[in-house]
């Protein structure tokens, strides 16, 4: 069916909804504790540093460095069968948290740990935007 998005969707975790809402607005955000300032990702119901439940979402710069990357030759979901080989990368945001993503446009030439990256936003469906990364 044309336009039907059949890849895995966000889990529906209520703590993560603000992340996905902001992604649709092309904003990358992490959770920040109002009480102690700890920034963490993926989000949780309380701050892992001080257990406060007063937490906010803070837009980050989108600047990151590359920590690692892999290339999937196996499709664990049927919906990825036409994509293999596809990449995944591990990035460290300038603000601290690390996250899994993909390269937009494939593994960059000369990829190496420490490579500066910046976020781009991939509107993969009308409902879902995936933050991905390219060389800065």
């Amino acid at each position, binding site marked *: 069916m044309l336009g039907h998005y059949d*890849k*895995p*969707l*966000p*889990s529906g*975790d209520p703590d*993560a909804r603000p992340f996905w809402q902001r992604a649709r607005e092309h904003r990358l955000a992490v959770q920040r504790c109002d009480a102690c300032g700890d920034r963490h*990702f*993926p989000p949780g119901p309380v701050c*892992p540093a001080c257990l406060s439940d007063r937490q906010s979402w803070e837009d980050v710069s989108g600047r990151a460095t590359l*920590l*690692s*990357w*892999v*290339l*999937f*030759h*196996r499709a*664990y*979901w049927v919906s*990825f069968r036409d*994509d293999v*080989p*596809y990449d*995944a990368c*591990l990035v460290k945001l300038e603000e601290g948290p*690390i996250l*899994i*993503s*993909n390269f937009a446009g494939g593994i960059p030439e000369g990829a*190496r*740990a420490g490579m500066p990256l910046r976020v781009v936003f991939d509107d993969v469906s009308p409902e*879902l935007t*995936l933050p991905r990364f390219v060389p800065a």
Partner: protein
Amino acid sequence: MSNPLHALKNQIAVVGVGNTAYGNFPDVSDYGLGAQAFRSAIQDCGLDKNEIDGLVCCRVPYYARMGEILGLDPRWTLQMPPHGRMSGMSIVEAALALHTGAAKYVALIYANIGRSRRVNYGGEESAAFWDPWGFTSPGAAHAMMFRMHMERYGTTTRQLAEVSVAFRRHAMLQPDAVMKTPMSIDDHEASRPIVEPLRLFDYCLINDGAVCLILTTADRARDLKKPPVLISGFGARDAFRRSAIPNFDPDFWYAETRDAGEQAYAMAGVGPSDVDALMCYDNFSPTVLFSLEGLGFCQRGEAGSFVEGGTLQLGNRLPTNTDGGHLSNSYMQGWALNVEAVRQLRGECGERQVPDCEIVQYVATAPCTRSIIYTRG
């Protein structure tokens, strides 16, 4: 002595071990395999099965059904989740229960039917936050870590191949092993990529089978059929703060492995240079490199060069996974490695026997890292 667990040194013994055949058994249930392994372990130690008053089940779906099948009414029962890290954890928990008197004889039963039931270890089976990016499976997490090790320390896939090649050589000496065709470093390099930089031969097998261990206190152990194997030391450290990416740690659980190892060495009164054989959890080959560094068999970042030239092979510096491990013997999630430790210390290993084997160490480097040091009773 600051660690109160040191009081357990040499107080708990493994007295019986058993395993099924390993392979693809679509017509046998996990309970059926568990029962076979239990019967085999009971025969191994000569205990009346009705003396079993402690039961640990791992990957067996339901402890009560297992107990019903075996005709057991324990007074201490523990159900563990189906994760490889649970084998070492279960043995430590059983030791604590025996030491307190909560049970006198504990049977630990593990059964896996993942091969015949086509378990994938990724995708829809294990939903996680990172699914929308297509990132899934423990293998991918280890591929991510190994790339970091390559980038940080210059480790190569040919060095990594040494792990798979050593364990395959051991499996060829092991009658029960699933994979017995010879493997060279070039064979490893030519195997198909699964999640690069890892290839097929960096991945554990998925096969059916079951394992059982029977533990009791050292004083009770003397009355049983075979010489006891003593638990001389153990150590533990979990790492949950950085577990947002399942099965991944940006420092390869270095601090946790070092900590668990130091606890185990101090309790047993030995060090890495005293270890005659290492049983190292090898869900994926990089885990072995991480374990060697964490335990101090080599310097941090130097595991790649340490394993070069067959270091882990029988007859060389550190015989490791002498049964072939998860990569070539059987995917028994750490349980079969603990059985192999016992058999090595009993001198039951035939062609793959480590000469004068007196000290064997088990380690699982994972979000729950455990190490156990076994010695001859």
